[in-house]
């Protein structure tokens, strides 16, 4: 998931399966006199929030989401640079990334909406839509509420406009260039740099590996406590790159409560359960029909096919290794229909 920047960058050819023109027309409207929140417009989509809810309207439908669910989903879409494939905020509204351009949709991935011709899609330049989304998450997040945090570990998103939490919503994602802990690379987490052990990981050993590097090899003979590192994560459902083999990215993360989006893959994505347990509801990527339920326990390995959407549930905070292939060749393979839906045939 080293997609924060790369997913925004345009590839040489950008796929446009719906042949949509680029939509412009963005607006940030003044704060509402009652709630204090600004409203936003991107193309034909309008966004408004009040004390409890977010309202999204398009020419074909209007849609209401709880403010907490919308903000958690919006936070991931922003932090992940629209991610790989489709980010369904829920079963109706979301975005699909074409790496440089983005489709924003209402009901386009929902069988009932499409059959009723209530679906609507507009296409945007990724950087322009991202700018509006960033302003939205900034304005709609109140002081004390962190949409990255587990619900029991942060304040509430409700109520009228009350300050902001730009420090939390503007976090930079961790992307190691080679491996966490190497000289000059992403540092390990510790009390000293502000990363305390999570309340659900107090039993995770914080011992350090013994590293005995001969002089001159300190930058190569290197190790760190990955489980300790993950036990100190201050965010949930936000994978960060910890080690890199060419385009193979180990993106472990700590998970608690619910993945805030239904992620619709455009490529195979692997999950390796490092500790504890997650249950995944899997639905068809295009229609939203249920396909499978997957229960993963420590040590389990599972591939999400490229034609589904998935949402995870973790009752106790768990450690999940998300394994991504960030090859720049993949968007073209997807465009040409050459990217496999299933990682392994046996």
């Amino acid at each position, binding site marked *: 998931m080293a997609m924060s920047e790369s997913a925004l960058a345009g590839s040489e050819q950008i796929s446009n399966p719906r042949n949509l023109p680029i939509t412009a027309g963005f607006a940030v409207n003044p704060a509402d006199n009652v709630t204090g929140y600004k409203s936003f417009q991107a193309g034909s989509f309008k966004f408004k929030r009040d004390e409890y809810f977010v309202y999204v309207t398009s020419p074909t439908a209007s849609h209401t989401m709880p403010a907490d669910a919308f903000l958690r989903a919006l936070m991931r879409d922003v932090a992940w640079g629209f991610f790989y494939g489709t980010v369904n905020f829920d079963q109706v509204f979301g975005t699909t990334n074409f790496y440089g351009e983005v489709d924003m949709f209402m009901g386009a991935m929902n069988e009932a909406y499409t059959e009723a011709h209530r679906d609507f899609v507009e296409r945007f330049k990724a950087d322009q839509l991202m700018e509006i989304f960033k302003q939205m998450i900034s304005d709609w997040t109140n002081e004390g509420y962190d949409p990255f945090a587990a619900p029991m570990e942060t304040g509430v998103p409700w109520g009228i406009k009350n300050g902001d939490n730009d420090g939390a919503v503007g976090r930079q994602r961790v992307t190691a260039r080679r*491996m966490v802990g190497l000289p000059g690379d992403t540092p390990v987490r510790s009390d000293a740099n502000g990363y305390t052990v999570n309340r659900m990981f107090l039993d995770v050993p914080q011992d350090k590996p013994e590293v*005995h590097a001969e002089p001159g090899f300190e930058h*190569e003979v290197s190790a760190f406590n990955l*489980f300790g590192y993950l036990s100190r994560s201050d965010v949930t459902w936000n994978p960060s790159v910890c080690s890199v083999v060419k385009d193979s990215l*180990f993106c472990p993360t700590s998970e608690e409560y619910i993945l805030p989006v239904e992620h619709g893959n455009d490529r195979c994505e692997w999950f390796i359960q490092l500790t504890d347990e997650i249950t995944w509801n899997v639905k068809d990527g295009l229609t939203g*029909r249920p396909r499978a339920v997957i*229960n993963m326990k420590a040590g389990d*390995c599972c591939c999400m096919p490229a034609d589904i959407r998935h949402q995870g549930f973790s009752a106790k905070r768990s450690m999940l290794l998300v394994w991504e292939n960030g090859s720049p060749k993949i968007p073209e393979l997807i465009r040409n229909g050459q990217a496999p839906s299933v990682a392994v045939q046996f």
Partner: protein
Amino acid sequence: MGHYTTDFGSIHSYKKGGVTAIDDDAKRYVFSNMFEAAAKSKPYERVAVAKNFEYVIESVKAEGESPWYSCAHDEFIISMDGKVRVDYVKLADPDAAVDPESEGAVKLSGQPVGKPMGYVLLGRGHMAMLPVGSAYRFTAPETCTLLIQSIDGPVTVHRWAEICQS
């Protein structure tokens, strides 16, 4: 109240989840368990438990001393459930040991020629780099499981039908 126990799993004690298909084929999810795969393998067989194009994640039963390996690119190892020592040698002529254009680890015959780089001692959950240009060897006093981030190569073992839910 408020006391949480983290379930790590190990080659000696693990629980396995699974795929409940509603309108799908469970095989598409390539579901396995790394501890089970390691438990059923010979020491230092590098069994693929995940594959994405050319890239793999290998599960390895560590037990005693491994052969020496090298690779034309970085690899990374996580000790999942036990103690393992990794020794490193900076190869005097890495291109002679491994084709620099190749991918995946290569098993070396005999002792590697080069300068000792040092070693690391890993415990549960520790991650280490297996750097390009080096030779490396694992030593585990007790049986445990290693997870290796690499690329499909000559030492990668594929036995998907045996390890995956069908």
